[in-house]
């Protein structure tokens, strides 16, 4: 696996723009989750068990020694089965999780789109949620105010924007979430299977916007169960299996390998 990365790097160096084109770099990243063998949630229980030295953990490596580089403007797909470590990889890039070993480097601003609308509050109106979500993504109030019309236009939610979010359908929430996260062009966009929500027409609209971003230099990290979507959107891909990088490279080769393994 290592030799593969070295060759990747040298090919990047060989190209005209050089390795300064790297936007995301994972360097032998491993992530370990510690799962208590029995779930201990009470303080008293923990104190007693610590005294008896009975606190035991199962270790679970969600990622093992994953090294990869994603270049500027690439739409990079990550495929693998449930529990393969795809979401963990995205979380590490989004800084939500810290790797247990190894190093992650990201050049530029990351806009995470992990489960759209997770940061929304159901009692607040759509308008209030737009500002709140914008703040979570690191925009200032003034930034969001400037983009507000365009966000609501894209989400097509003018009729409901002042209604509390609990009255929205899940598709409407997803539309609003996507619209906020992609209001301004980020350097890195992380998309975690969010295109499954919303109707066909809106999905196409999202895909169009992602393509437009990618042409404008945004790097997109896309996780999907469905290989057709990855084949359609991505140029390169990585295949994760039980936290290990099985294949890395051209999207068709990787997707063929993944489908052949099933």
């Amino acid at each position: 696996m290592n030799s593969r990365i070295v060759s990747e790097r040298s090919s990047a160096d060989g190209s005209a723009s050089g390795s300064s084109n790297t936007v995301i770099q994972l360097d032998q990243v491993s992530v370990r989750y510690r799962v208590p063998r029995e779930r201990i949630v009470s303080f008293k229980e923990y104190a007693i068990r610590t005294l008896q030295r009975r606190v035991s953990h199962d270790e679970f490596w969600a990622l093992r020694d994953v090294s990869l580089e994603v270049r500027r403007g690439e739409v990079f797909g990550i495929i693998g089965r449930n529990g393969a470590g795809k979401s963990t990889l995205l979380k590490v890039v989004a800084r939500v999780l810290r790797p247990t070993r190894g190093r992650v480097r990201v050049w530029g601003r990351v806009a995470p789109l992990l489960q759209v609308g997770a940061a929304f509050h159901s009692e607040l109106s759509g308008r209030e949620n737009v500002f709140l979500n914008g703040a979570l993504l690191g925009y200032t109030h003034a930034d969001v105010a400037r983009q507000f019309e365009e966000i609501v236009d894209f989400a097509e939610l003018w009729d409901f924007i002042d209604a509390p979010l609990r009255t929205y359908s899940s598709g409407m929430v997803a539309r609003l979430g996507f619209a906020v996260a992609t209001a301004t062009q980020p350097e890195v966009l992380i998309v975690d299977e969010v295109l499954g929500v919303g109707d066909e027409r809106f999905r196409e609209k999202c895909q169009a916007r992602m393509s437009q971003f990618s042409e404008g230099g945004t790097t997109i990290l896309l996780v999907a169960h469905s290989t057709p979507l990855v084949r359609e959107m991505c140029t390169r891909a990585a295949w994760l299996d039980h936290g290990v990088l099985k294949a890395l490279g051209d999207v068709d080769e990787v997707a063929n390998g993944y489908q052949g393994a099933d």
Partner: protein
Amino acid sequence: MTAQEITVVDSRARFAPGVLFELVRYRELIFALTQREIKARYRQSLLGIGWAIAQPLAFMVVFSLVFSRVARLPTEGIPYPIFAYAALVPWTFFSNALTTATIGLVSQRSIVTKTYFPREVIILAQVAARFVDFLAAALILAGMMVWYGVAPTLWLLLLPVLLLILLALIVALSLITSALNVSYRDLAPVVGLGLQVLLYLTPVAYSITSVPGEILPLYVLNPLVGLIEGFRSVVARGQPPPWDLLAISAVISFVLLAAAYAYFKRAERAFADVI
């Protein structure tokens, strides 16, 4: 691309004081989360912001009945309602802020596991939202002073200093309890019980002059003693705060804050994992 900001997430990275600068960058988020906290709490509630006032007022009425009519505590000539309320306003702030901040990280699970930002932002926003309650309750105090004809003195100008120490203490304790609550979900009732006990160990209903001398050396180690007596002095008594007690409060609060922050930043790494 090279001129751009590079984020490095290294498994070996340690706590660095630089995180304080990062906090400045996230001030808009603190503000937005504070707003959300206040709006979400008071929308669809019967009394709205009135809840912020109802709690200390109710305590004041009960304390007035029990301690001034039944127990006849000495209040140094100050009308008992003012005597008690001047202490209840900062106490309620302390108690409510600590209670909500303790469960703060867990209640915001959905954003903690999805996006990156310094996690203390949540704690600061919870405390800030309770601070708005404090301001509302303080307005009533001003009204009561007019009603009872208690004239403010220049010592009132010390309020910001007292508030700063109180905030340091609240944030310090909140950082610790909220981080612990991520792993041990039954910490909230422990904090609730602790606060009930602490109310009796703090001169809220009574004055420090009623505390027997032999237990005083131990009693004043409670950092709230100097603070609550300080609030009562500058507001109700129109006198300087007890400087020696206040110094104890300040030292304990700020040392605790530094230690709590370092602990929180260490514990923070595991939050997204365990929460």
